[in-house]
């Protein structure tokens, strides 16, 4: 994986000016492939559904192509040493998501989500371009740690003032557009955690009292971050957004572990998580039913109420088998509500089969791996923690939702990064890729030389 396209990059004239191969050529090639693959998928859906090429194929391809090109130019100009895989993966996943949503739109004539998603994707890529262009050095963010945490909390609290949608109070609706502020909070919180832990990691690791073999950090150091974290979790539980609270918990534990290197944090995290999970699973009826569904996905069928969403999702994956039914030829619309968002992976699983599904998983895996790689290559603790944090957000999110819809773990409502319908999610994920581009550029373009410590 590490040597992908080395020879092409060496032939790239743009890279001759700096000692490290920049590999912008390979990035461009991969982006073109990603766009072509998406357009091919779009055409395949149209051909399968009514035997004709879909009328918007050219426009769709052009739109996606222009967006990708814009992002590529921004990277070429402002982050020339960035990892060449990050942007193509983003483009491919986003393009594939648009294809799947367009495909599901055909089954729901009253609800066209693909055009909206394309607008949000454009916004996301614009944000990507802005971040790559304006943020010259990721360490600048460290200074805004407290602004970030304040903004994150504000964003999290905001939906409380808006009516609940489908039982969860996580949306705000403004003139037809609905936004999920919690999505943006993920990135802001990752920045804050990274900045705070980078600044205080020694104090966290080496000061404080000893309790048996476990070294407790001082309250003064641990206090603020635990408070922020608890506040987040509290708000999320109020809003019944358990997926995001799980994500924040995981993010917190991982970053604490990476910052301090203390296995004890993992242990504490696991204990707390188990307690939390049992308590919530026991007390919260919504979660309790999710756990019941996970343990007995077909209980509602036996009870004569027909299959629930999880059962329908499993049926969809099973119907796909190894090679899938082919784009446009599955029936994952049977899942009903949330087919385009939480359950979008079921459509991929049914129509692209295990082959396509594992390809998608590997794309996410590659994205996460590239994030960790950037973290390893960087030398400043903030950058390292930020890269690890962003990669962990993607990894946890993919695992929680993919594990949920395939029956591996209890289902938790979350958006599949880039694939699922949801504007805030697409924009946030483009921001994550932008930040990863930025840190990878720093990691690979460190002119002051020397490997990371």
């Amino acid at each position, binding site marked *: 994986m590490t040597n992908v396209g080395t020879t092409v990059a060496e032939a790239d004239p743009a890279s001759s000016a700096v000692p490290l191969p920049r590999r912008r050529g390979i990035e461009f090639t991969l982006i073109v492939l990603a766009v072509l693959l998406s357009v091919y998928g779009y055409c395949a859906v149209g051909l399968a559904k009514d035997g004709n090429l879909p009328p918007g194929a050219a426009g769709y391809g052009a739109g996606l192509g222009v967006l990708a090109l814009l992002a590529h130019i921004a990277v070429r100009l402002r982050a020339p040493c960035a990892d060449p895989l990050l942007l193509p993966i983003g483009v491919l996943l986003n393009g594939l998501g648009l294809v799947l949503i367009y495909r599901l739109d055909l089954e729901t004539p009253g609800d066209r989500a693909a055009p909206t998603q394309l607008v949000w994707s454009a916004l996301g890529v614009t944000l990507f371009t802005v971040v790559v262009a304006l943020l010259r050095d990721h360490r600048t963010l460290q200074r805004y740690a407290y602004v970030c945490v304040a903004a994150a909390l504000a964003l999290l609290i905001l939906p409380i003032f808006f009516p609940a949608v489908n039982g969860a109070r996580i949306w705000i609706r403004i003139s037809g557009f609905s936004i999920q502020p919690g999505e943006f909070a993920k990135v802001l919180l990752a920045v804050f955690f990274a900045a705070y832990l980078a600044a205080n990691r020694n104090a966290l690791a080496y000061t404080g009292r000893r309790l048996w073999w476990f070294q407790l950090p001082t309250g003064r150091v641990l206090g603020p971050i635990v408070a922020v974290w608890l506040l987040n979790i509290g708000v999320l539980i109020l809003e019944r957004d358990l997926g995001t609270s799980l994500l924040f918990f995981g993010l917190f534990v991982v970053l604490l572990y990476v910052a301090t290197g203390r296995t004890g944090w993992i242990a504490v995290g696991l204990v707390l998580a188990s307690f939390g999970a049992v308590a919530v699973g026991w007390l919260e009826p919504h979660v309790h039913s999710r756990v019941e569904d996970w343990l007995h996905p077909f209980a509602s069928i036996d009870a004569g109420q027909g299959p629930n969403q999880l059962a329908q999702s*499993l049926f969809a994956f*099973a119907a796909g088998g190894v090679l899938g039914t082919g784009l446009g030829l599955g*029936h994952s619309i049977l899942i009903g509500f949330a087919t385009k968002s939480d359950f979008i992976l079921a459509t991929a699983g049914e129509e692209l089969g295990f082959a396509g599904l594992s390809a998608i*998983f590997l794309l996410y895996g590659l994205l996460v791996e590239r994030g960790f790689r950037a973290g390893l290559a960087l030398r400043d603790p903030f950058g390292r923690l930020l890269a690890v944090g962003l990669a962990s957000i993607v990894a946890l999110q993919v695992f929680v939702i993919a594990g949920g819809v395939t029956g591996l773990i209890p289902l938790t409502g979350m958006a599949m990064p880039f694939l699922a319908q949801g504007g805030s999610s697409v924009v946030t994920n483009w921001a994550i890729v932008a930040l990863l581009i930025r840190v990878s550029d720093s990691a690979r373009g460190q002119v002051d030389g020397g490997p990371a410590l």
Partner: protein
Amino acid sequence: MTKYIRHPAVLCALLLVALLVNAVRVQVFAARGFDDNPANRRSAIARYERPRGDILVGRERITGSRDTGEQLRYERTYRDGPLWAPVTGFSSQVYGTTFLEHAADPLLSGTDPLLTPFPLWNELTRRLTPGGDVVTTLDAAAQRAAFSGLRGRKGAVAAVDPSTGRILALVSTPSYDPAELSGNAAATGRAWARLNGDPDKPMLNRAIRQTYPPGSTFKVVTAAAALDAGVVTDLDAPTRSPVPYTLPGTTTALTNEGDGCEDAPVREAFEWSCNTVFAKLGVEVGVARMAATARAFGFNEGGLRVPFAVARSTFDTSVDRAQLALSSIGQYNTRATPLQMAMVSAAVADDGLLRRPYLVERTTTDDGNTVGTPGARSARQVMSPGTAMRMRELMEDVVTEGTGGNAAVPGAVVGGKTGTAQHGVGNSGTPYAWFVSWAQGERDVRPRVAVAVVVEDASAVRGEITGGGVAAPIARAVMEAVLRAPDR
């Protein structure tokens, strides 16, 4: 710090592996079970994705398919639904299939492996095999004649070709339109509830699924048994039978509808349907030989399929002599489907040979290539040819001189037997009017058609309900329809 970054990275890799392993579990190992789950609508969607093959009468398609554009895309349509319903049954997206729609379902729905010469290739190209067609043996004119003859009455008609066993007509009234059950809308559910709640049972296929006491039409069996057993050797010799006939071992006296039965010879007794003579005859033949003949005709034999199952007709073999006497005139526990009685008549018409009735002439692919001809099978000798010849004589006499005059077809040889079957508690129910017959046209080498008609509640004064009055005209209409058609 590097080491501690590697650990979560390894954890993420493990999570990825877990997702992949679980995907293999769901999509490969557990997939078959999920696909077969009855709550999984995919098989239903796939089933209705293509138009169903059709059922044909001659060259006429009596079914069709309609593209609804819905999730369950193609819906069944029927032409003259009530007329053909006892044959086609229904094909419903909600309530499944019955009769031919059920028996030939794999072929009609396109899943029959015989339809695809290269199944693996179709699997690869994901091409759906179009459903095949089923060509029935029915004679449209005969079916229509029977249906209009029964109009407004409760009853059934079965007609077969004696020399082949092809079923020419299968009618049951009151009927229903199977098209009402095709879809999955709310109206379908209402129709289902209404049809099931109807006391007249319009969905009951009376021609093959309902058994009736055959009454005097069973005397054909009794007479055949008596002739074959040698109990009767001369049709015109007096039978030394009293009127009334006291059932053996009881004080119950059996009487007749008409006069002149005392000591009547078999020919006259058959013409005028003398209960006393045939009750006595049955007792003289004995239960063993009666049962053997009845069984040869098809009574007490389960598992007859045409290709859908036909109800078992019964002749009770554990009877005392009084019960045997009643059984021999088609009462007590003797019960028969109209199709069974048509078979009895057909065996007489075809020199004592009984052929298995069948309804499917051939099956074809959607472009007309023959897939199978499930029809004709070997015949079974029910009675000696000599007995059959004398039985034909007896039955012809019924039409020319006896109670079956209403069945006479000008220019054709017609044999028949009337029946009026008592039923209900203390015989209180309106009797069933029966008529079984066969007919041979002027230029025909052998009889072309055998018919059985039963009318349940003929709307006539009770005394006038006789097979000859009510059922024979319907049989005549059916026979005329068959004879009029050019020989096939």
